[in-house]
């Protein structure tokens, strides 16, 4: 029996009180922990989003608005001048178009533009993307004004992307799963199709399909980092697409790679100056910042909640200890009278309050560990709702290249947020509990010091 065991034993002196303090402290410690877990998860995510920002610059035609048929494309000539700008190490140019299935019926109001000069934006391909009408189902949705359904033979227009870099489409790195890639520099009749597209249209390497009235051969089949984001895509070389669609020298967008992320902003400005008002030049930093901003607010909220929960826990234990000291005033006087120092009495009460908080910590840590991940996900998905809308595959219009896609990829990354709960979190929890306990017993200690042992000689 020593001062510590006495303190621990005193913590169980009044079981109802012990139980309620344990529960309340458990809630506050659990909440602190959840907030800490969420805060860390979000901070990690922000860091990884920032780290994933490539040193690339997006160039798209100025005044580009999705769904508009009056977009002024850029030209290869204009973009050639970009290649000479300092720090630009690579330039990927893209011409994107949409093809609708020749046998499918489009709803009368379905916005669809014929960008090709030959006016023959048809294909034999059916889109692998299934659109859900109005509010039904998950994934891509379409809302039909006044209700109703899509025609039964409806097929979403397919994206055809002519690119100078077939290893990458709309910021998604792609992997060839069968066949081989295409020669990006030549006008050929070869194409790459997504695995979904191949499956939907029953194609293998070597199969053929038509686009713009021309027969193309499947040279390879690919998947992307995000399978759904590239599902609706057909990739051909830039010269092929320019020739097929009759848009010689035209591009709808480009990505410039810069030698170092430090030169990103300066180079962005240089490109913008070079291209003038004809182009929108943005880099991923701006886009990432937009994406991160809801995460930042989650981070702030969780930080304040963490502070609040720790403060609440400290207040609870502080009040409890003051209450207990007042209740045991006589007892404290007695043990002081028979030879206990203030320090010894304080140590005993600290042992008691540490016991309370450790009990609370056990409850709180179990609760926090269980709730940490779901709550983090909930907080993040609520605040980034706009981005969690599934793949926007079917809605890329015309030169569907630029910020929107970068967004999509950042957002899908955010949806994958997960809180990691390691031993360090549990140790933080325990350390926080002990700190809370010690802070909580500080005021009690002050009251203990003020109790005069002479008081015990007098009845209450």
């Amino acid at each position: 029996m020593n001062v510590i065991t006495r303190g621990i034993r005193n913590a169980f002196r009044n079981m109802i009180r012990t139980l309620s303090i344990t529960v309340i402290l458990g809630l506050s410690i659990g909440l602190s922990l959840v907030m800490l877990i969420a805060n860390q998860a979000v901070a990690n995510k922000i860091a990884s989003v920032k780290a994933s920002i490539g040193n690339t610059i997006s160039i798209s035609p100025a005044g580009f608005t999705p769904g508009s048929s009056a977009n002024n494309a850029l030209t290869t000539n204009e973009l050639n001048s970009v290649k000479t700008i300092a720090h630009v190490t690579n330039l990927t140019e893209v011409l994107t178009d949409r093809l609708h299935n020749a046998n499918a019926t489009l709803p009368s109001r379905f916005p669809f533009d014929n960008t090709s000069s030959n006016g023959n934006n048809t294909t034999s391909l059916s889109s692998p993307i299934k659109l859900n009408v109005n509010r039904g189902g998950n994934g891509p949705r379409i809302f039909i004004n006044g209700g109703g359904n899509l025609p039964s033979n409806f097929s979403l227009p397919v994206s055809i992307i002519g690119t100078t870099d077939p290893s990458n489409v709309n910021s998604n790195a792609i992997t060839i799963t069968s066949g081989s890639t295409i020669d990006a520099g030549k006008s050929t009749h070869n194409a790459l199709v997504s695995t979904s597209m191949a499956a939907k249209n029953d194609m293998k390497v070597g199969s053929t399909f038509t686009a713009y009235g021309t027969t193309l051969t499947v040279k390879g089949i690919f998947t992307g980092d995000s399978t759904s984001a590239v599902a609706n895509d057909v990739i051909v070389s830039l010269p092929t697409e320019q020739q097929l669609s009759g848009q010689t020298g035209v591009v709808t967008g480009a990505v410039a790679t810069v030698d170092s992320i430090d030169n990103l902003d300066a180079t962005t400005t240089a490109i913008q100056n070079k291209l003038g008002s004809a182009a929108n030049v943005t880099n991923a930093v701006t886009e990432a910042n937009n994406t991160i901003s809801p995460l930042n607010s989650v981070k702030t909220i969780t930080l304040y909640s963490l502070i609040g929960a720790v403060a609440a826990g400290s207040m609870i234990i502080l009040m409890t200890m003051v209450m207990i000291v007042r209740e045991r005033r006589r007892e404290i006087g007695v043990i002081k009278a028979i030879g206990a120092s203030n320090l010894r009495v304080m140590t005993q009460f600290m042992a008691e309050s540490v016991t309370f908080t450790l009990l609370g910590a056990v409850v709180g840590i179990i609760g926090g560990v269980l709730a940490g991940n779901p709550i983090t996900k909930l907080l993040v998905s609520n605040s980034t709702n706009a981005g969690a809308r599934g793949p926007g595959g079917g809605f890329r219009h015309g030169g569907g290249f630029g910020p929107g896609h970068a967004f999509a990829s950042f957002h899908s990354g955010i949806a994958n947020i997960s809180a990691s709960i390691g031993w360090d979190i549990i140790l933080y929890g325990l350390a926080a509990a002990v700190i809370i306990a010690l802070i909580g017993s500080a005021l009690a200690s002050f009251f203990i010091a003020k109790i005069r042992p002479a008081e015990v000689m007098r009845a209450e």
Partner: protein
Amino acid sequence: MLQVTDVQRTFKSGDTTVTAVGGVNFKIPEGKFASIVGQSGSGKTTLLSLLGGLDKPTSGSIEVDGQDITKMHDHQLIGYRCRKIGFVFQQYNLVPNLTAIENVMLPMEFAKVPVAKRQARAKELLAQVELSEDQMKRKPGRLSGGQQQRVAIARALANSPALILADEPTGNLDSQTGKMIFDLLHSLSRSQNTTIVVVTHDLSIAGKTDKVFRLKDGKLVR
């Protein structure tokens, strides 16, 4: 040997000054059993607190075994109370969450007696005050007043103090139990050669002590 010289204790309450103890002189030789009697409010408890180092006199000196406790620092007083004094209170004042034997071990812990010795000594003392083995393991809430007061006496004796101070130790007990407690204190002062000072209202008890001090308005009267 306990020597009290010109001890005065005044309290300030508001503008008025209350003189609880006003210039007291006396000597009690070692091993003697003394009692303090007097009307309510005459300063008995105040005087006892001063002797026990719970409170400091406004002026005067109190020598215990040749040491003036009025000149001690607070931390020295803690040691003094721990090793030299045994207290017995009217309200028993045992620690409710500790068993009888743990209560007796408590002052030994404060005096840094080795753990191994504490339990044996506590048992021995409780046996001396005639507590059964079963009663030793009980908490104060499950002991009678008389039993609690006997535990308190055993606790007061734990560190073999030079001086035992008891403030109305029989005040809450019936006369028969009170007499038993008193006899216990009496025999202890004989066998252990401990000086005992008892405050009491019971003149029949006071009559049996070696020395009786009468307090009136904070002063000793003949």
